[in-house]
């Protein structure tokens, strides 16, 4: 089957880069081509924030921080199926996060009151940290975001210039920004400049190098808190060995399992099913934008995603569902009606196709404090 492609000329025009953010070996291709690839991946964040603002503007989502964290002049109205997809992805992850944080009424009192930690991988311009941090002091959390320095610089610049965002972080004298402007540290919110691939290699070398970006992580992340790891379309851009290495860095180096360790949860949001007609076209289309979904074939199905969690030792539970299922089963009828009423969504078949090619997978490792709230969530029956 031919896979006609409409290359994104803007992406291509950015041209071969200088390899500023290349990892420490282990990557094929020249320095310049891997630098170019990195920039393309960094650019995907822009896509996501523009889509989020579109969904907020049309009333799909409520997010007071969406406008501030979307680059100026980028506002575009997305197609209804993209808006609905953004809605389902965001609300489903919100629900998982809320349950993890004990924000739901049925959560265990001992779990509810415990301080918790979220580590978001490749967070980019995500607004979730601000949405949650604004719930303090009722909610006791620390939020870490990890991303390329270049993405952080942009975000930190916006935070500096936006009083609304600053207020969420608390007293200005508690907020420290590095000279390079690529890291931010405050009591409850940290932005770390990390090329995730270096974490993967750290697992291999087991080195504690002071110059290593992961060093500050070790220092600032509290290994004794119940912790939730988030990867929204992030690990999928890494090579399979790097993607596994990053998770292992957390499960082994930062949060080694022991008698006293606390619950460690992981939520993934990524494309699946690359082998049918839609999936093949998706892979080809993204390739023309220079985007390679490197672990897509490795974790091609819901079953493979669950197995991935098992292999990483998330033995408390492993679950997965595609976005089509989440829309059908997780969104209440009344809410579905509200969302359907926002825009005429004519392309039902296309929606199903698209939504069946993205999944959310979640799993956890038991800790000393009892964590139950993910158990009763409905997941998609195994098809493979």
């Amino acid at each position, binding site marked *: *089957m031919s896979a006609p492609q409409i290359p994104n000329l803007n992406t291509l025009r950015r041209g071969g880069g200088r390899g500023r953010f290349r990892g420490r070996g282990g990557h094929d291709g020249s320095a310049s081509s891997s630098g170019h690839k990195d920039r393309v991946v960094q650019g995907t964040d822009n896509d996501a924030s523009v889509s989020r603002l579109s969904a907020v503007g049309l009333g799909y989502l409520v997010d007071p921080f969406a406008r501030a964290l979307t680059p100026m002049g980028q506002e575009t109205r997305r*197609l209804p199926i993209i808006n609905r997809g953004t809605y389902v992805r965001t609300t489903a992850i919100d629900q998982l996060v809320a349950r993890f944080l004990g924000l739901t009424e049925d959560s265990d009192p001992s779990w509810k009151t415990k301080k918790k930690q979220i580590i978001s991988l490749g967070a980019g311009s995500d607004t979730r940290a601000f949405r949650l941090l604004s719930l303090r002091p009722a909610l006791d959390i620390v939020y870490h975001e990890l991303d390329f320095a270049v993405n952080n610089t942009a975000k930190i610049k916006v935070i500096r210039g936006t009083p609304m965002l600053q207020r969420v972080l608390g007293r200005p004298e508690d907020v420290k920004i590095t000279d390079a402007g690529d890291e931010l540290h405050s009591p409850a919110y940290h932005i770390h400049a990390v090329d995730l691939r270096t974490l993967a290699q750290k697992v291999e070398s087991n080195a504690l190098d002071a110059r290593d970006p992961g060093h500050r992580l070790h220092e600032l992340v509290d290994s004794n808190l119940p912790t939730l790891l988030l990867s929204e379309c992030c690990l999928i851009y890494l090579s399979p060995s790097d993607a596994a290495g990053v998770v292992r860095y957390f499960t082994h180096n930062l949060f080694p399992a022991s008698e006293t360790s606390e619950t460690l949860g992981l939520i993934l949001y990524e494309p699946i099913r690359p082998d049918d007609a839609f999936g093949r076209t998706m892979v080809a289309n993204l390739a023309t934008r220079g985007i390679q979904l490197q672990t897509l074939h490795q974790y091609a199905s819901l079953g493979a995603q669950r197995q991935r969690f098992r292999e990483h030792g998330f033995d408390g539970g492993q679950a997965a569902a595609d976005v089509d299922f989440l829309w059908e089963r997780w969104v209440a009828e009344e809410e579905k009606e509200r969302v359907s009423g926002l825009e005429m969504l*004519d392309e039902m078949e296309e929606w199903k*196709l698209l939504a069946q090619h993205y999944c959310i997978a979640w799993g956890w490792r038991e800790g000393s404090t009892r964590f139950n709230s993910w158990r009763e969530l409905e997941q998609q029956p195994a098809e493979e």
Partner: protein
Amino acid sequence: MSDLDRAIAQLRACRLIPEAQVRELCYKARELLIEEGNVVCVDAPVTICGDIHGQFHDLMELFRVGGDVPDTNYLFMGDFVDRGFYSLESFLLLLCLKVRYPDRITLIRGNHESRQITTVYGFYDECIRKYGSANVWRYCCEVFDYLALGALVLGASSDLESSGPSYNDTTQSTMSTEDGELETEVLNSKGEVLMKTYKQRPRSSLDNGSTSPPRTQSQTSMRTGAPGTGASGGGGSNNSSRTGAVLCVHGGLSPLIDTVDKIRLIDRKQEVPHEGAMCDLLWSDPDEIDGWGLSPRGAGFLFGADIVKGFNYKNDLSLIARAHQLVMEGYKEMFDGGIVTVWSAPNYCYRCGNVAAILELGEDTSNGGTVTRSNGDYNRSNGILTGTVNKQTLRSPGRRYRVFEAAAQDTRGMPAKKPVADYFL
């Protein structure tokens, strides 16, 4: 060479015509369309096409596969615009062909031929981008209001002449023609036969499932006879019967419409309403349900096999052809062959990876080419003389599907401007 022929040549090259010419074209088209009834009568042979959605290069591929206008008689079931990057070029070309060869091409309205939908799904933006103002969009929308709501194909043949041996079939002539006569045939864009089905006698009433063929495999048996001879095994059995008419409509049926005549009573010259018969015809979908159901699209209804069977029986129809829904295999027959979805936009939105199809209905020459007009005339039935004897001998038309893929990559232009957010990243 007339101005119109020049415009056609220019549009075929995917180049737009000046705004003044668009205005004139739309005016002429409206004059022509206003004369058409809500339900246009079309004589077989005809090639029926589904959604195009501005995929201009794929429309060119369609003409390559199905033959050119005016050599081939075409019926397009709407959704010419939106989603693809070349809605203007596609729609204006079809409109030019309509004005140039009014008897060789029929255009009916899809749910995207609407002011409201085109502002959401891209056609409006494309007009602004390519012409610098909303004028051309306004001219086109005025034409949309005059498009017919449906078509009735008359005189289609129940016999399908074989195009040759099944592609990939290595057994060669093992089955007898006892199975029945050729009913459907699926060809690829090179004209090679991918699949055949035969009429079963007697037709099993239990066989109520939908058929949707595998993408490439030849599934059925060969009939005897040299390739291309169209061996006519089952031919003489049922000579007295005739093929019912084929109703073509973009979406489907409406609970407010129980006869084709009722479609004729609609005042169609308006924007597509949010509800009512006209809306339903453009928005509804068949589904595996009993009776009527709510549509997840928020407009139109879902309708089941019983509704289709009842409607076809009451209206002497042998088939409803409709578009509106993406089907990965290009076409999908449902309800014992009572309705078919035809989809003509390959790799829809440059993203879905589907193939496209067109449906060819042959001409019934058994009566020396005369067409039974009964179904086409307004108020033809007074409800008394429609004998059931006649109805039982209604036969479904032979159906030849030509399946094709998206046009080759190098013929496809670049998007005019901003890339779309195709995926979640």
